[in-house]
Each structure stands twice: as C-alpha cells, then as structure tokens.
C-alpha cells in the first residue's frame, strides 16, 4: 500500500505527454532488442539441426556434382565462421531476404506473404469473437458470483480448455461438414473459384475491396468452421481469466466506495469494474492472439487451411531450414509487436503505467 508522504505538499508532475512518449519509446526499444534475440535463437536452433542445407536445396543430380555444391556452399556462406554467417543472415534480413525454401523451391518471403495473411485472417476473426464472448461471459459469471449461472459458465469453460483442439476440429468437421453438409470442410475458397486480387492477402478483405460480394460470402463460409473450432478452444481460457480478474477488482475498495456514492450498477460494472480489470484482460487478449497465430497448426491441418501453421508443419517435417527460420522469425516478431501494442494500450488506459 503506498505510504502517504510527510506533509500535504502537492506532488509535482510533468506534463502528461512526456511520460507517455518516454514509455512508448522504451517499450519500442525493448521490442527491437527482443526481435534481435529471436534472430539469434532461430539462427542457433536451425544450425544445430544435423542436416545439410545444401542437399535440401539442390536436386539429387546437382548434389552429386562437387563443383556445384562448393559454389552453393560459398554462396550460402556455409564455409564461413558462424558469426560471419550470422552477420550475413542479418544483412539479408534487412532486405527481406529470407532465403529459399527447399520444398516450395521459391523464396521463403514470398511463401510467408502468401501463408501469413490466411492465418492472420483466421486469427483476427477468432480474436474478435472470443474476446467479446469470453470477456462477456466471464464478466457475467463474476458479477453473479456463486450463482448457478456462474457455476455453469465455470464448468463449461473448464470443459473448453480440456478438449484437445484437433479433436474439436475433427468433431466439427465430422458433424457440420461430413454429416450435415452445412459448411464447407476444406480450403479457404471453393476450389472452382478464383481468389480476389491480392491487396492484403486476406480473402475476405480483398474480395470486399474488389467489390466481389459472392467471393466474400464464400470466403466467410469457409472461415466459419475453423473459426468456430478455434473460438471454442480459446474462449475457455478467456472466460476463466476475465472472470478471475473481474472478481478481484470487484472486491477492491474503490468499487465499494463507488457503490457508497449511489452509482447505479451499470456505471459501476463498466466504468469502474471493467476498467479496473482492463489491463490484465488486454494482456491476456494479446497472448491469445499470439497463441492463435501459432496454435492454428493443428486446426489448419484438419481443414486444409493454407496458412502459416500448415506451412510451418510442412517445413518442419521436411527440415526446410530457411523456411523454418523464416516462420520462427515472423511469428516471434509478431508476438513481440503484439506485446508492444498491448503495452501501448495499457499505457493509454492506466496512467500509473507511464510513470514506470
């Protein structure tokens, strides 16, 4: 509990903008530092892998030709000391050169540009609904603490977090596609349709931009099943977490003080309680987004969703070094900047955070 300073002197404060700017810059720099750390980790991990990157890129015949091999090794810098290789790696990164993928035989950067938006689309869709429903239900449960509604919500969310995501996916696939034929089971678009011109890479957004409403509805219909599965998967944690955060806040003194002012429940619940819990809930939402991006692997494989998860999986089993490094780097960077965005929002919402 903060100690009251001796005397009644007013605490001098700088103007509001400065602490916020300083806070943002510091978080930004830390983010850059962490990104650097991730490049080191990706580099180290993939260099520990006991495979020969050259043979992964070349075909069989070329691999038997020592001259070609030597030339490629020189070009890839494989005969250089590790540190130099790392430096080369960093310089290429700055030019968005992530190397060539062994399995697709194309630049990794291009592969990622194709695969990432697919997962992003799914993740954003899911994030929106699971945060809305998750926080909403969690708040409902917390405010009706110990009631039957609370207990039911708690048990259901417990079920939610106990289900293996691939099992939910298969159940959904089986019931809603295989048996009932209500929704399409695979891909992002009906195979007969051509995707809209690429602006963001997300079919839903791009089809709207291109004015193709038919494509839009088709893309959405394909989105529903995997989104449903992932929402069920993430909502459990969000419900439990926000319930607990809101319960904590509702026991705070300032909530009792607000009640003593005669404010109606509507204002107390949203302006006081929800705002008080906003920081942990925001942080949790950020973490959820991060886990959606990477955890989609299992769901994507069930629904043949050509996103990052599928790409990462194929890269992993074929030990496509460049691709793996690319994926790891991309997801790591997105994680870090998601955290940065969350920190930013927290700084905006809670004035105490900026003082740190």
């Amino acid at each position, binding site marked *: 509990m*903060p100690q009251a300073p001796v*005397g*009644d002197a*007013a605490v001098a404060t700088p103007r509001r903008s400065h602490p916020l700017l300083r806070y943002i810059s510091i978080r930004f720099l830390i983010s850059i530092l962490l990104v650097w750390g991730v490049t080191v980790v990706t580099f180290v991990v993939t260099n520990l892998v006991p495979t020969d990157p050259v043979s992964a890129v070349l075909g069989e015949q070329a691999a038997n030709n020592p001259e070609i091999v030597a030339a490629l090794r020189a070009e890839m810098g494989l005969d250089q000391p590790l540190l130099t290789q790392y430096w080369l790696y960093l310089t290429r990164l700055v030019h968005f050169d992530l190397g060539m993928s062994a399995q697709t035989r194309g630049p990794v950067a291009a592969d990622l540009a194709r695969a990432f938006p697919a997962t992003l689309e799914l993740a954003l869709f899911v994030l929106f609904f699971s945060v809305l429903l998750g926080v909403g239900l969690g708040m409902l449960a917390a405010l009706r603490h110990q009631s039957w509604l609370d207990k039911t919500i708690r048990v259901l969310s417990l079920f939610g977090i106990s289900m293996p995501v691939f099992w939910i996916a298969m159940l959904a696939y089986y019931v809603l596609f295989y048996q009932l034929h209500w929704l399409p089971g695979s891909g992002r678009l009906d195979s007969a349709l051509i995707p809209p011109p690429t602006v963001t890479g997300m079919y839903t957004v791009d089809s709207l931009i291109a004015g193709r409403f038919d494509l839009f509805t088709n893309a959405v219909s394909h989105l529903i099943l995997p989104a449903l599965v992932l929402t069920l998967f993430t909502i459990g944690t969000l419900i439990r977490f926000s319930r607990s955060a809101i319960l904590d806040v509702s026991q705070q003194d300032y909530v009792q*003080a607000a009640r003593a002012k005669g*404010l109606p429940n509507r*204002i107390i619940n949203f302006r006081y309680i929800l705002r008080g819990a906003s920081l942990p809930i925001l942080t949790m939402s950020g973490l959820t987004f991060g886990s959606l991006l990477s955890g989609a692997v299992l769901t994507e494989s069930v629904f043949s969703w050509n996103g990052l998860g599928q790409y990462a999986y194929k890269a992993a089993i074929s030990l496509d070094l460049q691709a793996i490094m690319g994926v790891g780097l991309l997801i790591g960077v997105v994680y870090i900047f998601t955290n940065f965005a969350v920190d930013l929002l927290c700084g905006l919402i809670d004035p*105490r955070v900026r003082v740190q």
Partner: protein
Amino acid sequence: MTDFDAASATTPGASATRASTAQTDAGVTIRNLTLELHGRRLLDNVNLDIAGGTITGLAGESGSGKTLSGMTMLGLQPKGSEVSGEILYAGVNLLEQTEDQMNRYRGTEISVIFQDPTASMHPMISIGEQLTDHLRYHLKLSKKQALARAIELLGMVKVPDPHLAVTKYPHQFSGGQLQRIAIAGAIACDLKILIADEPTTALDVTVQAGIMHLLRDLCDTLGLTILLITHDLGVMSGLADSIAVMRNGRVIEVGSRFEIIRNPREDYTRSLIESLPNRQARA
C-alpha cells in the same frame, strides 16, 4: 501520536450533552440494530442517537462492530446479512428502503469516507471525473456544470490549484490530499450525514490535524452531522461532541466528550483511555 486535549486544538462545536432521545431533522437514531452473518451475531441490539449538526464519535477496537454499524446505515452491510431493528433518518426507517431508494440517499444526503483514500479511488479515472460522476448521475448536471462544481468543492476543502487538480489522477496526490478530495466528493450533493470511517488512521500525524480541522469546519459551516468511527480516542477526544463506545457488537457506554474522557463509567472504556499512547495496529 498527538494527545488532543479537549479544550485546545479545535473550536468547540455544538455543546455536547448526553445524547437526547429526540431526533432532530438531520440526525439519525439507531434502535435495536441487530445483524447476523453466517450464524454469528455481529451487532447486538445497538442503540445510538446521532444528534443533528454534531460530531458523534463511535469508538471501539477492531471487531467491535463500529464500522459495520456505519455501513449498515447506508445499506452497505455484507451480502447475506440478516438485519433487524430501525435506523431512523428524516422520519424514514432506512432498513426498510429498497435498494433503489437507498441509492438515492447514497452520495447525496448520506455519504461515507473511508480509511484508505488511496484505495478508495479508482486509479485509472481522473479526479475530476470521480468527483463528478455521481453529481451528474444524481443531479443530472451537464459535464461543464459538474466540472465547475468539482472545482468549487476542491476549493472548499482547500486542495491547491483546483483547475489543475481535476485533470490529475489519484496516484499524483498524497494521502492527505486524497482524503480532502474524498471529503469534497462526499459533500458534493447537499450532504446531511457524513460517515467518517477511520478518516485519519492511514495518514501521517502532521496531516491528521488538517483533516480534523476540515471536518470540524464543515460541520460548523454546513451544519453537517458527522459519525466519526475510529479506534483512536485521541482523535476522538479532539473532535467528537459526544462519544459512544462499542465492544463485541454492543454499545456499552455513551456520553459527552468530557464525560467519557474524564469520567468513564465502564472499565472497558477506562482501559481504552488508559491505553491512549499505544496505537492499535490495524492491517
């Protein structure tokens, strides 16, 4: 801690006599108040007359039921409590009011200020907004009107630079200032009864005097009725006109300030007074 001699420090307010049973308009009469929670009797037939326009002190140790009595006046007793008796204010039994009806009293005619002003304010909402949200709700004021009123109130409680203060956040103020701000919020809508729950306990000794002066001033200028709940008889003796002592959920002695401090009848009261230099630690 400061041993407030009854004759010095504060200007004497309304003369303190043994509490009369007749209730004035702004006073509160508590009759046979009993409260049970989870099968335990926490308040046992509490009878108390809080005379209008005076400062009545409610003294006792932790667990005596003094805070509980204060909270019950506003209908803020813990969920699941079984309450019986009467709390009469302005011809109405507050215990029989519905939640909506009670809400109309809260923050307007009857307010509370709490022990820890830092914890009683929402850390993410500006002082201006926290001072005015109940104003706007109860009195239907516009944002501008409410802000003007907030600045005016901050001036009344002597918070420096009110125009700047309304834009600041609780963590930018000291404990003493926050308590003043809390008082400002309490008196905002034509306050009649102020329940002050350990208002100075969490504050530095040098700051306590300021708050006590403020409370005395407001009582005199605004004609407030103040229920001062504290375990600190030193503070009590400097501020209260009449004192009631509680123990284990019962009122065991009632009298004027002079009577209680100089001539306590009960042994327990005497032991409380004798232990004055030792402050009982509260979490």
